[in-house]
């Protein structure tokens, strides 16, 4: 399989806007032209099968074109972002990058040869298949980043069917499997991607209003912030038809408020992992956390409450870690799930699970109850080791207005007694002054 069919489709979309980046619009015709220029530039430097090209940028015209050109030439692509620049040297070495394309704001670019040669067996597999590759680094909150290799032609397969042309905001970044998925999905159907320079509620709402954005893929943490900011009341967001959320469990309270404020918007949960790609699923309804996998190109099973997936779009493997698949090709997602007939609900990472004297506590469930408490803006729940109980439930809050800890704890306990089992109620409570999410707008659950 190659990416030829995908690239052949792009000129068909002609003058339609392919992307809006920093307010600058690029049509498909322009994108195809820029891609051709990149192909020449790359070809002159010997880019092709078995060569690894890193592109450090965002969803700008030059970055997207360079991506498409390297893909067309059958090379392996490593999308990176400026946010991760401190770790870039390490990424280049692990991925055996021989050419780095660096894009600055304003889309000026530089190319630099790198001292590495692709030798990994997974790269040879791609060359044998004649397929372009994609390397994504797992954000790895703990330990070393893992380099995940995908067959990019296989990733493209699920976009063969032309779907509705949509304008989608690329909230997830250029180095994220979800971000790349959005870009390829949109280009395959002649839609438009809109990139914001600043991922604040205001900038996102402005972009939705200005570009009449149809789909907003984002994280529950950002949505919570979005609701709190009140931007939904001051901007015209009527173009918005779909909000897709994923990357972490969604608190029921956030989903409920979202549904109240956007009654006509479909709220859709997506499920993906850097190792698996984004799996197509359907939410039971807009105010439901229950999803059903459509099973297009993948199978699922539940073993001891943990979700396992076998997917055609799954990674070939890690460049720098042992294989994760079992003998039959199943991958343990380490996500705990609850099952109800054909629907299931993601409870959260099994590793986030708190064990209070043998009782299992899911942080997301506790956070969900705590978010409906007055004056709570955000909360992260995590386990703390305690010799008497093994672990105790700890909660770190961001309040809307300051409140004495004693009074807050009394209110919190009273609130929780009606909603949670005794062992689920946080014993260790602290009030934070700093925000509790990282650059990916995912909640940071740790001590």
């Amino acid at each position, binding site marked *: 399989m190659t990416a030829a069919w995908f690239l052949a489709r792009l000129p068909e979309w002609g003058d339609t806007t392919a992307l809006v980046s920093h307010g600058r619009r690029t049509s498909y015709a322009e994108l195809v032209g820029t891609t051709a220029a990149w192909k020449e530039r790359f070809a002159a430097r010997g880019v092709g099968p078995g060569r690894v090209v890193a592109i450090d940028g965002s969803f700008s015209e030059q970055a997207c074109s360079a991506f498409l050109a390297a893909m067309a030439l059958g090379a392996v692509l490593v999308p990176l972002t400026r946010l991760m620049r401190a770790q870039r040297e390490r990424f280049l070495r692990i991925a055996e990058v021989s050419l780095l394309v660096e894009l600055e704001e304003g889309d000026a670019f530089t190319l630099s040869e790198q001292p590495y040669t692709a030798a990994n067996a997974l790269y040879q597999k791609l060359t044998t298949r004649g397929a372009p590759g994609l390397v994504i680094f797992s954000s790895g909150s703990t330990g070393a980043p893992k380099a995940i290799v995908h067959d990019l032609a296989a990733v493209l397969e699920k976009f063969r069917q032309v779907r509705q042309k949509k304008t989608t905001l690329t909230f997830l970044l250029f180095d994220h499997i979800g971000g790349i998925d959005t870009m390829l999905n949109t280009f395959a159907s002649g839609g438009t991607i809109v990139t914001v320079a600043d991922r604040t509620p205001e900038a996102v709402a402005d972009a939705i209003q200005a570009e009449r954005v149809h789909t907003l893929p984002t994280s529950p943490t950002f949505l919570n912030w979005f609701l709190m900011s009140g931007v939904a009341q001051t901007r015209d967001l009527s173009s918005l038809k779909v909000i897709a959320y994923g990357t972490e469990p969604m608190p029921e309270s956030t989903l409920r408020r979202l549904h109240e404020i956007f009654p006509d918007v479909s709220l859709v949960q997506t499920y993906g992992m850097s190792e698996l790609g984004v799996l197509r699923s359907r939410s039971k309804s807009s105010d439901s956390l229950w999803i059903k996998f459509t099973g297009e190109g993948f199978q699922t099973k539940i073993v001891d409450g943990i979700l396992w997936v076998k997917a055609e779009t799954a990674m070939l493997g890690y460049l720098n870690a042992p294989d994760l698949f079992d003998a039959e090709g199943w991958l343990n997602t380490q996500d705990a799930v609850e099952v109800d007939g054909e629907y299931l609900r993601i409870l959260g990472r099994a590793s986030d699970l708190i064990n209070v004297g043998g009782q299992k506590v899911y942080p997301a469930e506790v956070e969900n109850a705590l978010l409906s408490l007055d004056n709570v803006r955000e909360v992260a729940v995590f386990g703390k080791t305690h*010799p008497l109980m093994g672990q105790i439930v700890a909660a770190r809050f961001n309040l809307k207005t300051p409140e004495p800890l004693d009074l807050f704890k009394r209110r919190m306990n009273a609130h929780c007694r009606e909603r949670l089992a005794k062992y689920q109620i946080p*014993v260790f409570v602290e009030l934070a002054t700093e925000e509790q999410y990282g650059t990916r707008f995912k909640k940071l659950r740790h001590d």
Partner: protein
Amino acid sequence: MIARTDAYDIVLKSLTEVFAQIGTPAPDKVGEDTVLVGNDAVLDSLGVVQLIVEVEQRLEETHGVSLTLANDKAMSQRNSPFRTVGVFAEHVVATALEAAS
């Protein structure tokens, strides 16, 4: 260093606070001999953990000391250092002394 009277006050205050948190009225008389662990205890096991955390947080606030009261040593003693309010207060004093040395 924490004086025995200060430690006693903190344990007692924390106990009152824990009752307020868990929403159960405190027993009529709380004092030196109030039983916290075992038969006739006024708290269940989660309540005791809550009390320990409360005392630790208060010690940090009022005395600026960060102590781990439920440490391995405390757990391995034959008689629980959290048996009664009085014994708990002694344990606070002893743990603070040990941490300072």
